[in-house]
């Protein structure tokens, strides 16, 4: 049965119903383009590291650029890593995914190892929204022997109710 994938319902502005599952957006478990069925394509396209060369909270970012950025780039040849130092800005890690999502992560006052962990985590994600997933499973063929309906095991009206048949 083909279940058409529905867009996640967005909250109506003005309501703050974050207590229930209904008040916050949710989606079904899905993969972009059935990733993994054919071959696995890393969904992270590019990472941009924007940081200031002098600010104090960008120290982890500067250490990352000096020590760990090359290793990260070698281990992930399919992610393009852009390093752009610009002054007067909070250090930011921008992740762009194949389906168009752009995620910004603030890396102010993070150490180099934490930034590496964060970058690795972003490299493993797909660009789908990080919202509540309704069920932790998904299948396109929910029934092998045929979906049950109330008439499944009832005899058809063509069955003849006669005297007991002799065993052959």
């Amino acid at each position, binding site marked *: *049965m*083909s*279940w058409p994938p529905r867009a996640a319902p*967005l*909250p109506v*502005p003005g309501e703050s119903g974050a207590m229930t599952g209904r008040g916050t*957006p949710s989606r079904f478990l899905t993969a*972009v*383009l*059935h990733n993994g*069925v*054919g*071959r696995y*394509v*890393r969904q992270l*396209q*590019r990472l*941009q590291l924007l940081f200031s060369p002098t600010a104090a909270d960008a120290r982890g970012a500067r250490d990352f650029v000096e020590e760990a950025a090359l290793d990260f780039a070698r281990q992930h*040849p*399919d*992610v*393009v890593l*852009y390093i*752009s130092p610009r002054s*007067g*800005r909070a250090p930011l890690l921008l992740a762009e995914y*194949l*389906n*168009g*999502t*752009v995620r910004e992560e603030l890396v102010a006052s993070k150490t180099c190892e934490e930034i590496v962990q964060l970058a690795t985590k972003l490299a493993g994600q797909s660009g789908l*929204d990080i919202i509540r997933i309704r069920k932790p499973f998904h299948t*396109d*063929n929910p*029934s*092998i*022997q*045929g979906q049950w*309906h109330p*008439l499944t095991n*009832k005899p*058809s*009206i*063509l069955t003849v109710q006669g005297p007991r048949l002799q065993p052959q």
Partner: protein
Amino acid sequence: PAAMATRLLLAASRRLLAGAGAGAGARPGLRFRMLSPPEKKRWLRAYLEQQRSEQPNWDYHAEIQAFSHRLHENFSLDLLKTAFVNSCYIESEEARRRELGLDEGSVALNLQDNSKLAEQGMSFSRAYLLRCFEGAYPDLPAKGVEALVDFLTSQELVSYVAQNLSIQDLTLCKEFPVPPDVLQRTFFAVIGALLDSSGPEKTGIFVRDFFIPQLIGKDLFEIWEVVNPMGLLVEELTKRNISSPEPRITRQLGVSTVLPLYFVGLYCDKKIIAEGPGETLLAAEEEAARVALRKLYGYTENRRPWDYSKPKQGLAAEKAISSN
């Protein structure tokens, strides 16, 4: 204070810099900052964004290399770069250079466009998919196989696949956003480039890995439009020397209500071949014919899933090449 306000706005809406200019972009940015982030990103991005290649932080060569690594394929980079060049881009670039007043020598771009690669890719993909389906569903008639292949190489599907592989960022094209037929042509050109770089077997596996999962969850008759399933069923049964089917009602519910339900079974030589439900007797009979056709062609919902393991498909790809 005015300068500081402008700098804050520029900081908040950095992507607008590449667009119409900081002045025009800044004012919408202020109003929309009050929306929660997911909403601002979705339609604001679509409204104001420019091509990725015109935004800061873009290195074409690195992106092309990453593209080939991402797909786990070894492309020859010149062929790949040629595959992304469209003829409309070449024309518009030459027109722009002419307008800028350059002399005729430097107007001509030394770029080949991707039309030959696109044709190669398209014909290879079609031939390969035809072979795949003829092998996997031998009972499916030629029209059905053609309908499946047409669906998989149709504009919407190919442009959807291409968009989710971010081919629209790398494409050189006149218009933005890239129209779907250009995306389709570019994707087939990429396949043609892969064919020239790595050979038919690897390209066959590539086509299999990206096109065939798009059939997941789809029913045969959603893709292949059959107007008279009962007639088709009678033809198929006569080909197999089975007598023509007799429809009988097997179950019915709510006959005198607004929503009746009839199950019609088709019997050949008093043996049931299929049963289908419907709201009216005619609808139920048609549905039963469709169920029977699905069973005959082996395209039921509980069929064995497609085999994506390492190739024994070398044979199919070679046949595809030799038939070109």
